[in-house]
């Protein structure tokens, strides 16, 4: 296959059986939303724009969980473990290496790589031990809870890596922001407009790349495993390998979230790996519709925005509302609110079309 051909066939994978939305209508909507996201900083204060990068930071973890849980059918309740590992790794690396010569970007890659490696080791034992869905969930959850407890007790001065104090329960701070080396002065990505564009670009790339991934042969096998592991195995696919690869990719995305969050707020705490932190990604992904990337992304951003608003007006009730939202979603719309409403509307439209043509 010649290379332009390979290029177009990769492009064609942007639409396919595993993703909702196709054709000119969907993509023009996509372009409109993207354009709105691009011009938003023109109409807002730099400080607000920088604050709102927060929402994008989490979306990577949600997309990764959608890949693992929604597409792969493996319940991973401990994505925050990889978030935390990468966040702490970024902190330790950048505090030691500094922010010159683009070393923060090297640290970003190293931290994401470390969380992927951690996921590969853990996932090897889990998937190659062929443990069932239920156990996978509680083992990954236990991992993140133990990591939280471990980091919480690193307060003493003996817990230091190079010049980075881990600081225990209070968390680690003062790591440099992401810095892009640029002729005529480095660009430091403080929470402001430049960071907004960088994060948005990363998010669009991750979203489109994942669309291609799930519509590729790999993604189709992953969905086949979710639908029926025995059948997939009988057809000759190594179930363990596919699930492990999906798990590592999803966890690397959680790691990317961790790095972006840490670099954005120059701060990471053990509670980012705790019980309620671990529950929130599950809520975002379940509410939107975990079996599709677009609904996951939209659902995550909506739930996050709602959570943020609740935290401002009645902080203590926010978690109760999140719990209720999760319970109601699973009971009333198990495949996710956006997917359920969407299929209801499209069914209604189709019925009306059928009536009009008849």
């Amino acid at each position: 296959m010649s290379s332009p051909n390979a290029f177009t066939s990769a492009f064609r994978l942007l639409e396919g059986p595993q993703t909702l939305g196709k054709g000119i209508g969907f993509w023009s909507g996509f372009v409109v939303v993207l354009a709105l996201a691009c011009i938003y900083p023109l109409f807002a204060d730099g400080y607000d724009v920088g604050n709102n990068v927060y929402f994008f930071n989490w979306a990577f973890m949600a997309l990764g969980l959608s890949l693992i849980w929604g597409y792969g059918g493996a319940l991973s309740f401990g994505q925050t473990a990889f978030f935390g590992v990468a966040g702490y790794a970024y902190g330790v690396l950048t505090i030691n290496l500094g922010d010159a010569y683009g070393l923060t970007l090297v640290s970003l890659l190293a931290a994401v790589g470390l969380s992927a490696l951690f996921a590969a080791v853990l996932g090897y034992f889990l998937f190659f031990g062929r443990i069932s869905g239920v156990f996978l969930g509680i083992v990954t959850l236990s991992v993140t809870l133990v990591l939280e407890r471990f980091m919480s007790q690193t307060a003493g001065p003996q817990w230091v890596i190079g010049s980075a104090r881990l600081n225990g329960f209070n968390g680690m701070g003062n790591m440099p922001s992401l810095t892009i080396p640029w002729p005529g002065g480095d660009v430091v990505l403080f929470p402001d407009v430049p960071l907004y564009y960088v994060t948005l670009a990363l998010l669009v790339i991750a979203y489109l790349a994942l669309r291609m991934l799930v519509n590729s042969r790999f993604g189709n096998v992953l969905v086949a495993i979710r639908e029926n592991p025995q059948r997939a195995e009988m057809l000759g696919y190594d179930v363990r390998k596919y699930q492990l690869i999906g798990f590592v990719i999803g966890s690397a995305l959680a790691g990317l979230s961790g790095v972006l969050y840490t670099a954005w707020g120059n701060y990471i705490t053990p509670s980012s790996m705790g019980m309620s932190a671990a529950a929130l990604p599950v809520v975002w992904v379940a509410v939107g519709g975990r079996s599709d990337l677009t609904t996951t992304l939209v659902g995550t951003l909506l739930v996050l925005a709602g959570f943020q608003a609740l935290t401002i007006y009645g902080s203590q009730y926010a978690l109760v509302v999140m719990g209720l939202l999760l319970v109601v979603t699973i009971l009333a719309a198990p495949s996710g609110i956006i997917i359920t409403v969407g299929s209801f509307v499209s069914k209604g439209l189709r019925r009306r079309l059928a009536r009009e043509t008849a």
Partner: protein
Amino acid sequence: MDFLSGLFAFLYQTGDAFAFLVLSACGLAVIFGMMGVINLAHGEFILCGAYVSTTAAHLGLPLPFSILLGGLVAGLVGMLLERVVIRRLYARPLDTIVVTWGISMIATQGTLILLGPSMQSTGTPFGSFMVGGYGYSIYRLVLMAAAVATLALLWVIFTRTRFGVLARATIQVPHIAEALGVDTSLIYMLTFGLGAALAGLAGGLYAPTMTLVPTMGATFVIEAFVTVVVGGADIFLGTAPAAAILAVVKAGLTSWQGQLAGQIGLLVAVVLVIRVLPRGLTGFILRERA
């Protein structure tokens, strides 16, 4: 003498870890063995038992009764929850787990809102005794006895009572049991209630030894999870031996490197065990026997 007191210390720690693992896990194991569902609100049933028993003790009820009351209330809450929510999800076990997590979030945060950030504990009763220069809490021995008694009680329930026989029939082949006239939905509710009551009992028993905060359930769940994962679906062939083995691991690592090392060691042990024995000790023992 030095050796003997060291041995006693190790046995005491192992027994303590065993009691903690058995008591925190058996409620979870009952529900898992019955329905194949992991109840992520397990920690909140423990919380419920602890708060109810402590409140009762503050109101003047003797400690043993207030502990039992804690278990009873948690059991009733569990049955109510089964009726209202869990029942609708039997066809979708993985969704049940997610729902119980939602319930857990509501319960933890709701407790924080309604009852504040902490509750006054009653303090550990009975004082302590000395062996070889170290003091040991007598109440911990009571907890070990309680763990053994709980296992014995469960054994009697599941093998000697009508409920136990019907429950085991329902576990094995639900629709045949139903065809023979067993009210399986009642059995499910009672079993879920039993699991919740055992969790509440654990909460009541441990309430005097710890600080009562809304997130206290999280202290128990890691141990409960790993014990059930290592043990598998059967309480007597799985949970109890798993707790015994893990107790040695935990006590050894705790006395060597501290409490956290004990927990990390448990988790590593679990990850290694599931690579070798994916169906837990239950699967291993049953395969040996067959």
